[in-house]
């Protein structure tokens, strides 16, 4: 039981997330790990849907850097979907 618990924690720790910033703060649209093909497929599908809906995807890379992405980076920990910005 104890071993299972540790394994479960590790699995959760390595789950990548696709989140969308929206009126609720943010919504988690997909979670995946590279080993789980079905979860990856679902994440890619959700990712494309959001891009089609006009969102942009960004991966924060630390040290004040972020990268705009057009394909779901499966190795990223967190992919954030944002709305376009414009001059006010």
């Amino acid at each position, binding site marked *: 039981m104890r071993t299972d618990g540790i394994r479960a924690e590790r699995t959760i720790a390595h789950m990548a997330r696709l989140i969308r910033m929206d009126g609720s*703060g943010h919504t988690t649209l997909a979670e995946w790990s590279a080993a789980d093909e079905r979860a990856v497929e679902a994440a890619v599908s959700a990712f494309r849907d959001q891009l089609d809906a006009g969102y942009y995807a960004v991966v924060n890379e630390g*040290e*004040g850097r*972020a990268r*705009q992405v057009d394909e779901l980076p499966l190795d990223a920990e967190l992919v*954030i979907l*944002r709305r376009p*910005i*414009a001059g*006010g």
Partner: protein
Amino acid sequence: MSLGAPPDGPFRVERWPVGHPPAPLPETAAVYWRPRVDERGLRRRGRVWTLTTVAHTVPYGIASGVLLWLEPLTAPVVFALLAHAWVIPELYAKRGANVLRRRPRSGAGAERTALGLLGDLIGHEARALHARTGLVIERGALGVWLVGEAGAILVRLGGRRVHCWCVRAQDPSLPSADRIAHLLLALRSDEQGFATVANLAFSGARWRVRRRLPPALRPALDAAGAAARR
């Protein structure tokens, strides 16, 4: 867990590896007629703003002096002219300070959730400053940025001049911290593109904007000024 928080504080000078420039911000396509903002362009725009300020004030000053010399009884007119010379630059500075004006809050739950994400994106010092002022400080290649909900102020290296930009996420339902996170992520993705998309509201001396800011926000501008001098 900190998601990409800088290891040695939020005010580090960031540099892109040679040969790996950031992909342009997609929003720049909507303002294709604007030249991409760069170091040289910023300097030029700063000089133009200074010249404009001089053009708005010096003629009034000269006219006041001449009138007073010709006829001391014109003192009331001279007073009005000098008031114009003072008010016009002040209005511009006020417009610059307004880019950091806070917007109405969303529901408490949404604000809390958004704040959690924003907190994960920034370092400890920036988090503390945000808690005090509602603004996020971020160092870029062009200077030190103060990012608000609907705009940002760029404090140029040296800390004396600021450029105030109006820019916002196109979703009015977003909680405050998410509005900032939108701008922050866009800024981090492509700093020059971010400045290109944004509308320049003011450029001038930092002290001119500072005294037009609400007192609660002034520590953030002071921190950005100090970081820009380092």
